[in-house]
Structures are given as C-alpha cells and as structure tokens.
C-alpha cells in the first residue's frame, strides 16, 4: 500500500490516531530540544530535524518503571495497562531498529510483562526520507513499524507495514511510486556507519584490541552513565523498593554497566572491577556479545551516546579510534 499525504492529510491522520491512542509527536521543547511529546493538535510539530533527544523506546522501558506493589501480607498487585495504547510518531530507522531489538529481548521467554504492558498494542509511525536536519535524507526503515511516512517535497509518502497501519491509511489518496523509487535509490549507499561498526566488531571478535586501549579510553570516562541511559538497546536495570505505609512499591530503574557497583558482589568481588573492563564491556557487549547471542549488533547507530558523552568516547568515536589503531593495514 502506498499513499500520499499532504499536510492537511497528515493532521487528519494524527487526529484519527489520537482518538484511539496516546499519540506522541515530535516537538521542539523550551530550549529547542527535539523530543516526543503528547499530541494536542495545537502545538507545532517538528517534522524535520535532529534525532529525537530521548530515545523513543523509553515509552516502553522508562527510566523508572513500577513492577508491582507488595502489601504487608505478601500479596502482590501488578500495574494495569493504560486504557489507550501508545502511538509514537516521528521515529527514524535507528529508533525503530532499537525498538525491534528491545522487543526481541523483552519478549524472549519468560516475557517481560512490565515492558509488554506498555508495548502491546502500541502503534509505531516511522518518519524517514527528507526529514533530517535541514531536510537532509534519513534512511528508510526496515518495515519494522505500522506506518512509515517518507518525507518528500511538501508531502509524505505513506506506507502501511502492518494491518493496523494499512487500516488507518486506507482513505488517503494513492502515492506516487516513482517518488518512492527515488527515495529507495537514495537509501542505497548510506551504510558508512555500519561499515565502521562491522570493522570494529571484527577486531573485538578476533580479540585484536589490547587492554591498554581500554585503559586509555576509560581514563577519559567521567562515569556519567549517559551512554547507557540514552542507548535505545540498553536494557539493564536495577530494582528499587519504596515502602509507603502498608505498601511497598517495587520499581525498576535504568542501570549502567559503567558503574562499579553494577556487578560488584556483596563480598566485594567484582568481575567488572576496573574502569577499563567496564569500558570494554560497553563496546564489546554491543559489537561482539550481542552478535553472538542475537545475530546482530546491539548498536543501531542512532548517535545518541556520542552526543551525550561529555568527553567524546561514545560508540562511534571509540569504534573509529579502534579501527584507526588496529584496523586493516595495522600491525
């Protein structure tokens, strides 16, 4: 199914969606931060621009997420799903890949009910094509969304990738196939980032990165944990209890493998007991361990960790340095 939406059509589509879903749309916040926020029909949409500041997967796996309540008798109450499911609009190819990664992770047996309470029934709407900063091209999705809007000049090609998506699009006018072909053509040759990751991954799998490298990178780490917290595929969490009278609220909280206590045991023993081991773990896990376990990188090249790292040692920066030091042609 290929449809074409002008601005009025887009507004109509969003209004329709917002009837049935808790629709989140890209907006510019007070200081210009581009982020998903609740659709009101009034606030201006940010239909082109930089990557969304907060990873969209945070709607399904938020920084703090209630798991359950326990009363003094030990009886357990689990949160109820919201009445309306979520709909996230404005996701780029990497955002969608990140959600696909998390979906597989949290759905793997035993399925994570806390994640699925938010995720089940949610509608994902990709925004690709000429929707980047200054209308530059953003890679097309892998079809891992319900609707994909491909921005072309002053309109959007709309693809329904799921039955829910197709149903929502059915009444809109047919799209121009030649424009879609042109966009697909542009999509080829946008693999520079994954080439770099591929090379870095190979170095790690072949164990060609010496410890000294990790020590030097780790020296630059100021332990902010931001790289983990912004990563759309990071899924590690710790658990927090808060006693409020008769009820204990048990929640999970985003955790970071860059922190010393992440693996520190009560005895003091710590399998990740140095900055260097932890830094290596951050990169190795995404580029080697995840490849072994899931058959693909745990990095979707969204660029968030490189932007949020105060000292310039995000994934891409480290991969680049690694390949520069130990890549093809190096001893």
């Amino acid at each position, binding site marked *: 199914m290929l449809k074409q939406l002008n601005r009025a059509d887009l507004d109509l589509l969003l209004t329709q969606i917002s009837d049935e879903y808790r629709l989140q749309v890209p907006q510019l916040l007070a200081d210009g931060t581009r982020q998903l926020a609740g659709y009101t029909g009034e606030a201006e949409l940010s239909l082109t621009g930089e990557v969304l500041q907060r990873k969209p997967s945070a709607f399904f796996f938020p920084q703090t997420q209630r798991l359950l309540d326990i009363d003094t008798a030990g*009886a357990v109450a*689990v949160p109820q799903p919201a009445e309306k499911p979520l709909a996230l609009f404005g996701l780029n190819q990497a955002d969608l890949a990140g959600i696909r990664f998390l979906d597989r992770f949290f759905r793997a047996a035993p399925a994570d009910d806390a994640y699925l309470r938010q995720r089940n029934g949610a509608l994902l709407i990709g925004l690709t094509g000429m929707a980047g900063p200054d209308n530059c091209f953003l890679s097309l999705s892998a079809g891992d969304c319900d609707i994909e809007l491909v921005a072309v000049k002053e309109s959007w090609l709309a693809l329904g990738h799921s039955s829910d998506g197709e149903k929502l699009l059915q009444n809109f006018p047919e799209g121009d196939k030649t424009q879609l072909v042109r966009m697909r053509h542009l999509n080829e040759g946008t693999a520079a980032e994954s080439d770099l990751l591929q090379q870095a991954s190979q170095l790690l799998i072949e164990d060609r990165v010496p410890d000294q490298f990790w020590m030097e990178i780790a020296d630059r780490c100021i332990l902010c944990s931001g790289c983990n917290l912004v990563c759309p595929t990071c899924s590690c969490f710790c658990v927090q209890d808060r006693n409020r009278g008769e009820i204990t609220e*048990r929640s999970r909280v985003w*955790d970071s493998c860059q922190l010393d206590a992440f693996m520190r045991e*009560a005895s003091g023993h710590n399998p990740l007991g140095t900055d260097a081991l932890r830094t290596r773990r951050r990169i190795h896990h995404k580029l080697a361990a995840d490849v072994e376990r899931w058959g693909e990188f745990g990095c979707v090249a969204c660029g968030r960790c490189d932007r949020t790292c105060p000292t310039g040692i995000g994934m891409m920066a480290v991969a680049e340095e690694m390949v520069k030091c130990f890549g093809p042609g190096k001893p």
Partner: protein
Amino acid sequence: MHPPTVDNQSIYAPRSCRLLAVSKLTPQEKLFRLRLEDGRELNHQPGQFVQVSIPGLTEAPISIASSPTCKGYFELGVRKAGLLTGALHQLQPGAQIGIRGPFGRPFQLEALLGKQLLLLAGGCGLAPLRSLIQYCQKQSSAYSAVQILYGARSPQDLLFKDDLEDWQLSTNFNCRYTVDQAPASSCYDGETGLLTRLLADVQVEADNCCAVLVGPPPMYQPVISALHRMGLNGPQQIMLSLERQMRCGVGKCGHCTIDHLYCCSDGPIFWLEEVEHLRGAL
C-alpha cells in the same frame, strides 16, 4: 492496580513463603527452611536458585541447599553479606518472605549417571552442592562412586558440619574436608591446607569421571588445573557453578552477563568448555 490474585501475572511477582526453621551454620551463615504458602512444592532441581524478596530491600539470589527429594520444604543457606541477607538473618520461624523461582540451569544430572563423581566445594559453595549430594544420596546406585571434597577458610567457617559427618559415615560417599588454616586455639584436628591438597591423593578413572565445582572465584583455576592433570580433559567432564549478581533471575536485568551469556538463565551451572574461553568468566 489489579486486585491481588494468587496466580501471579508478573515474572517479577514473588510468591509468599513461610519460614519453618532457622539454624545457625557458622557465625556468618544460617540455614533457613521454608515452605510455599500455597502448599505447593518448589519443584526445583539441584543447582538452581531462588530470588528471596523482602519488601523494602528488594531481592537477593540464593542457591537452594536442599534436594528436591526432600518434600514439604526447601532450604537456603545464607551468608550475611548485604542489606537483604542481613535482614534475613534477623527473621524468626513463622516469618513470611517472598520467593521467585526456581531459576537457572541446574546441574546436568543425566550426564552424571553411571559416572564416578568428584564433587568439590569451597566456602559457601557447599550450599548448592548439598542439594546435589542429597539427591545422589537418594539414588546412590546411579553413580559408580561419589567423592566429596570440601574446603573452608577455618574450622568455624565449615558449613553443614552434621551433614559432613553423615556423609563421612555413609558407605555411598567418600567425603573429606579441609580448612585453609586452623588457629592454634581451635580444637580442630582435621586436615588443613587448600582444596587442591586433598585432590592430590584422589584416585579416579579419568575417562569415566565427572567433576562438579562450586566455590569462590579464586578456587577455580587451581582446581581446574589439578583436574586436568588428573586426566579430566574431555568434554562434559568438568561442570561448574558461576556466581554473578543475579538480580532478576530471568535474563533481563543484565547484571549477571558473562560475555553473551546470562549467568542466571544460561547458567549458573556450565560445562567448563562453555565458558573457559570467555574473558572474565573464571
């Protein structure tokens, strides 16, 4: 919130347990005997663990110290180390706590059938191994020989002293233990030295032997080297238990990863060949 129900809808929901008995094992360790409030059996296998939940203090992974052949209860040996285990040590019989599990890949019992077993424990490692020993005790004819070797830091750190005595008296087992050091003041008259010293005079048919190791991280390399020297070099000959911060027990929280493996669900029991090449595993 849903109204509380008996059937838990969440993989994170603890089941209510009643504490039946508490006994002191060492100054640092206690044995807790528990029963699920709904009367069901835990249905675990030797080598598995549970997450013990105390509201306000979250959870801690504790290996099950009793065999599934013991009906009507299960036992946990707990060292006082953190906030939760400290609180657990304060509890009296009759107290209610939460349990999730059993979790994890157990000892590979089928692979042990018909083999000479070399069961090696160091420190707290005797607690999970005890569930296997008790299990073997129930079906001793299934194995050609069972040798138990146990090392503790000092005489007062020896766990399950009554059990050790029983096992020593049992005709099914050959059980020996040692302590790293015995203070001059102690009345201990048993063996001293590291676990590897006991191994030095153990005789096995290497081809038909399977070793099971449970102990603290520093124990593994020397013991594995000794086992290799004894000829245990084939696949599925050395099984070991790895310990990590298993926070959720279901492969989600990420605290127990070893390379691409999750210790809580891919382990905690591994064959040596599954993990020895993984950096930081041993």
